[in-house]
């Protein structure tokens, strides 16, 4: 492995720092080209310590979706979905810009960086939505 690979902030801190700069970054293994999310210290399964940070395309497909029901005084209904990124990895996120129970499996979505409770978060919108 490269000298200094484990130096400095860990993968979670780096991911959050990128997000705070408005960048959605994921990892990619130099040796086998596979993308990784969530951020890890080494390639899952092989332990190869060769993960680089790359910009995510932000494009993905809804793999599973649910609408968490909540009373309006508690913020109202909201979506939670699993998104298969075009690069391969899957992540939990919300799809917004559409009714939370109108999100469908197979829907093409695009990432934006929004905010949930004051924290920057990757949030998806149906592709084509303005």
């Amino acid at each position: 492995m490269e000298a200094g690979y484990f130096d400095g902030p860990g993968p979670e801190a780096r991911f959050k720092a990128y997000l705070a700069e408005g960048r959605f970054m994921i990892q990619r293994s130099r040796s086998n080209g596979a993308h990784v999310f969530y951020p890890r210290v080494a390639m899952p399964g092989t332990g190869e310590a060769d993960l680089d940070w790359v910009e995510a395309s932000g494009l993905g497909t809804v793999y599973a979706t649910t609408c968490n029901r909540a009373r309006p005084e508690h913020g109202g209904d909201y979506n939670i979905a699993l998104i298969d990124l075009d690069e391969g990895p899957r992540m939990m996120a919300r799809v917004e810009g559409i009714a939370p129970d109108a999100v469908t499996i197979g829907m093409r979505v695009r990432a934006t960086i929004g905010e949930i409770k004051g924290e920057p978060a990757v949030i998806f919108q149906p592709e084509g939505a303005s």
Partner: protein
Amino acid sequence: MSLRGKAACVGLATAGCGEAPGRNAMELMAEAVVRALDDAQIPLAKVDGLFAATAFHSMAAMSLAEHLGIQPKFSDGSNIGGSSFMAHALMAAMALDAGLIEVAVIAYGSNQRTAGGFKSISEPMPFEAIYGPRNPITAYALATSRYCHEFGATREDLAEVAVSARAWANLNPEAFARGPLGVADVTGARMISDPLGKLDCCLVTDGAAAIVLTRPERAKDGPRTPVYLLGAAMEHHHRMISAMPSLTTTAAAASGPRAFAMAGCTPADMDTVQLYDAFTINTILFLEDLGFCAKGEGKDFVRRGRIAPGGALAVNTNGGGLSCVHPGMYGLFVTIEAIRQIRAAAGDDEGPREPGGWIPGARLSLAHGNGGVLSSQVTSIWGHGDTL
């Protein structure tokens, strides 16, 4: 060396199932241990192996040993969620077979219902928590959405699972939720996380349980019909639902075949099938993954009362986590129902049930545990002495 038949359950008990006001989780767990030892007619001082996990105690085995005033030679408090207790049975069998211990007790206790509601053992999941999943329900709802998408299952299919569980509960005076329940009641219940409504979700009850295991050579010394651990196997593939490889196939597809191989039997041999039904989707996924039907056919398998009393397969005969009891981690209750069916068929007094509630001739029972968010899967197979 196979562990087949190397441990036998010689005593069991539950305590405080439903609501147990005024008693804490440790007190309920200790009561279950005392009752299980009484069932086995083994003195507390003989217990030298202790296995426990709860949502209330970070070091449950130590806390329980101290409360009971015993000094275990071997203990384990591994917590892999609701399937921990099937894993404990596997480890107890190993410790018994290795000669490390003589008498193992596996225990669980919870007063979550009277203490204010569902008690989670889970820390927030990194990279998920910000989105506000209401775990475990959100995770199971996501899996359900995917299952419905891939195989065309409907909310009515899911409801069949809850309706069958209730029909079993209606034969069991010990069950917490009894009374008529139809498919329309389940599909019409308040939605929690689409496509799961309130009646697709397990109960939130109090309850404690304990079982006593010994080596087979001393198992026949007690008053109860010994029930032998014939096979057990575990596997897990993820912790967070977003890291589950396929939301429609669980690690039970791996644990099941290994448990059956150790036991030397097949799904078709099972007289009763006890599955950890935290949500209606669980029963369908586990019937498929454990080999009772093909992938995608679980939704058809559960239709028209086929897993209800009098149906093709006796599934979750106590009423399950959906209608009998679910005090947070349900695995030991699954195991106890598997064993009690065999004891009842052998003539032990297991208390009254309505006709059909005890399965005549039951010799082999499967007890399958699930933990986390479809994460840890542990399959165990129990048998009457005739099956050794």
